[in-house]
């Protein structure tokens, strides 16, 4: 079976499953059948708080986490590049929430963040700078999307390298000067 047909089948399977969730389900919500989930490319994971969930990538870059309780679906969270869809199943009624703030789930590029770990040794100073950048990253993300937010973040990293390295060098020179006295 070609990759394309496999992807289409998998997508259809997931869509059918999500449709089940969207409809008013049974009293406890639909059962997440392990075989169906495995075929759809989801894997069973145990979260740090002890909750069991299925996690997997859907085509076009979206990722879904299906939270389970006693084998039944409790909630589904789908992350897409531009929004977060949260489906909750409780009391036999499937509810869909689209108001989940995307910034709560958004994280800046890890490599860019790591660059600051390399050039700023002071933990407090680094934390303040990373906090400011994350706040602005989320602001740009909510207005212009992930790509522009990443461009903004990397731009700040590149422009900050010069002043921060210069500051470190002058500090080293000052310390050496102090010892030489």
């Amino acid at each position, binding site marked *: 079976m070609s990759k394309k047909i496999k992807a289409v089948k998998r997508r259809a399977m997931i869509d059918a499953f999500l449709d089940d969730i969207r409809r008013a389900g049974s009293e406890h919500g639909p059962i997440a059948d392990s075989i169906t989930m495995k075929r759809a490319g989801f894997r069973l994971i145990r979260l740090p708080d002890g909750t069991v969930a299925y996690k997997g990538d859907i085509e076009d870059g979206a990722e879904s986490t299906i939270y389970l309780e006693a084998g039944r679906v409790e909630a589904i969270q789908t992350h897409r590049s531009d929004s977060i869809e949260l489906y909750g199943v409780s009391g036999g009624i499937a509810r869909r929430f689209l108001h989940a703030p995307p*910034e*709560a789930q958004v*994280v800046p590029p890890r490599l860019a963040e790591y660059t600051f770990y390399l050039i700023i040794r002071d933990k*407090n*100073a680094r*934390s*303040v*700078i*990373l*906090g*400011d*950048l*994350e*706040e*602005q990253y*989320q602001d740009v993300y909510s207005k212009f999307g992930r790509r522009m937010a990443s461009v903004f973040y990397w731009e*700040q990293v590149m*422009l*900050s*390298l*010069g*002043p*921060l390295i*210069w*500051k470190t060098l002058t500090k080293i020179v000052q310390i050496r000067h102090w010892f030489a006295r």
Partner: protein
Amino acid sequence: MQMKRIHILENILNNRAPGNFEALILSAILFHREDAYGVPIRQWAEEQSGKMVSVGALYTTLDRMEDKGYISSYMGEPGPNRGGRAKKYFRVEGAGLAALDEWRSANDRIKKGLELNPAGGAA
């Protein structure tokens, strides 16, 4: 008058007089008062100067001004939209206000000099 000039010269020689960027940051802190932390200071500086201000340049300048005694800082509460990291707030001290005043009067003197001699050559 003569004493004030000597004082300004001493400040310049000791690197105590604020540069244009330091004056811009000082005015940004004064403008934002109780809400003066990195993000609004940087945005205000960009709006007023029309140039991009990097977070690295901003914090290097803020640290330098704190060493000079122009400003002081205190840590705020961590915020959820900052990945749980705290904000650092700044306030302008007396030395900062005096430095800003010196910067302004120096600029006024340059402006007056240009007005008296707009061609730039001999008057």
